[in-house]
């Protein structure tokens, strides 16, 4: 199965108990696909096991990016959370693992 990793790069970070994940298309065509298919609902469903609140998506076309804000996903964050990743450092990598059905012309040839 192809994952988002094939066409995107990402960066995540924390803000209190919330986190953000920015995801960037590696090409204009990749960005167009991500923008059309990676909805806030889809990201929220993917991270539901972590107890995320209502995900908000911001489009940043000048950076070929989407920025997702994920409320309360860090279970307290900072000093309060008991989790190994209290600061959302791993969320970008996790989103890049999302399985996606890409049109063949978007999948880079190895």
């Amino acid at each position, binding site marked *: 199965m192809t994952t988002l990793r094939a066409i995107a790069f*990402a960066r995540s970070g924390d803000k*209190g108990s919330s986190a953000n994940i920015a995801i960037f298309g590696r090409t204009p065509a990749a960005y167009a696909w991500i923008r059309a298919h990676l909805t806030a609902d889809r990201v929220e469903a993917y991270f539901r096991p972590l107890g995320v609140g209502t995900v908000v998506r911001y489009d940043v076309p000048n950076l070929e990016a989407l920025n997702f804000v994920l409320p309360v996903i860090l279970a307290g964050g900072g*000093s309060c959370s008991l989790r190994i990743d209290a600061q959302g450092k791993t969320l970008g990598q996790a989103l890049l693992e999302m399985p996606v059905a890409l049109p063949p012309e978007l999948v880079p040839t190895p």
Partner: protein
Amino acid sequence: MPRPLKIANASGFWGDQPDAAARLLAAQPDVDYLTLDYLAEVSLSIMAIAQAKDPAAGYARDFIEVVRSLIPFWKQGGRTRIVTNAGGLDPQACGRAVRDELAKAGLADRKVAVVSGDDVLAWVQAHVGECANLETGAALEPLAAKLVTANAYVGADAIAAALQAGADIVITGRVADPSLTVGPARAHFGWDADAHDRIAAATIAGHLLECGTQACGGFSTDWLSLPGNHDIGFPVAEIAADGSCVMTKPTGTGGAVTLQSIKEQLLYEIGDPGNYLSPDATVSLLGVKLAQVGPDRVQLTGATGRPPPDSYKVSATYRHGFKAHGMLTVYGDQAVAKARRAGGGVIRRLTEAGCRYRETLVECLGTGASVGGVGQRVPEGDLIETVLRISVAADTEEPVRRFTRAIAPLVTSGPQGVTGYASGRPKVLPVFGYWPCLVPRTVVNRQWAIL
């Protein structure tokens, strides 16, 4: 074209590379200003606890070592000035320590300025009804007695004023991280507080600088393929009079400054990219254009700004009991099942013995536990090894202390293949809750003085 203002960063957080400042200035002595960031969201509460035991511990003492390391550079004629939030809870004490170091080295002519006024604990304690949690809307009243610190993210005004008065080193407490860069830019170019677009542009440069090596490929998606990733350079922003800037790094350092590294850092820890709130301007990233204008050189233009919000964001902290984490490695057949049973067993035995925890957690690292099992590649049953991590939190210290003594016994009473217990009992850690809220601008009395 006049020479741009060169502002670098040599510390992205408290605990960053202690030799970064001296190495950066050895590689690029023409940097005008060096910024060093030491304060994360709950750093001040850690300082508050340390200060209760040792009155001299209210600031980031690591910075004094940095000053010491730069003395040869300054004695050889280096003029780079410094702006840092190392002052933490006690910028005055930090300033005095820096001044003493400089005097010992024969540099008593260097001017050390201290910026204060960010401490709003007394106001917050007197106005708990006006300090609802910015994230959750929750009321502060039930926690009022447990407050430890409350500091406003103040802006660049006082930094700029101190620099214009000739300060060589400016030491602040809590300020908005990008203001460490906006201050020197305003002082150098003489921008008024209402030059919103230029201040927004400098805020973006400051945002890119504030996490140190992260602008140069540190923490990036494609880190593994970066050149010199054993020694990634710290960033330098070359800011022009119109606020546009080129992000770069000293020649010969590792990592890379590329469209990708800058895009990733631009959106790091950002909410709404059209409304990035700082005390110096409300910034929009939506018009920013990036161009790779040379190797390891990315130009940013097109930032726009509006007036800053009427209130200051405050980072308050409160005591929230205690916690501890214990770790053991489990190797062998059904490693994850064994680790889960062993971890759950520790909690069960302590609970049966009367310990009360408000929260417990058993994680099996290697299974994708960092993200609660999202994005697993390998079924848990196929793993031959996992690191068992057990955590507890409680309102009182005693049950947590008992937990710290319950990990090692698994070496003999747990499954075959338990190992990796070499670092002694886990530590009991105080927990600090983070409480973001807003205060009116009028309650913050920013002050600066040259010592």
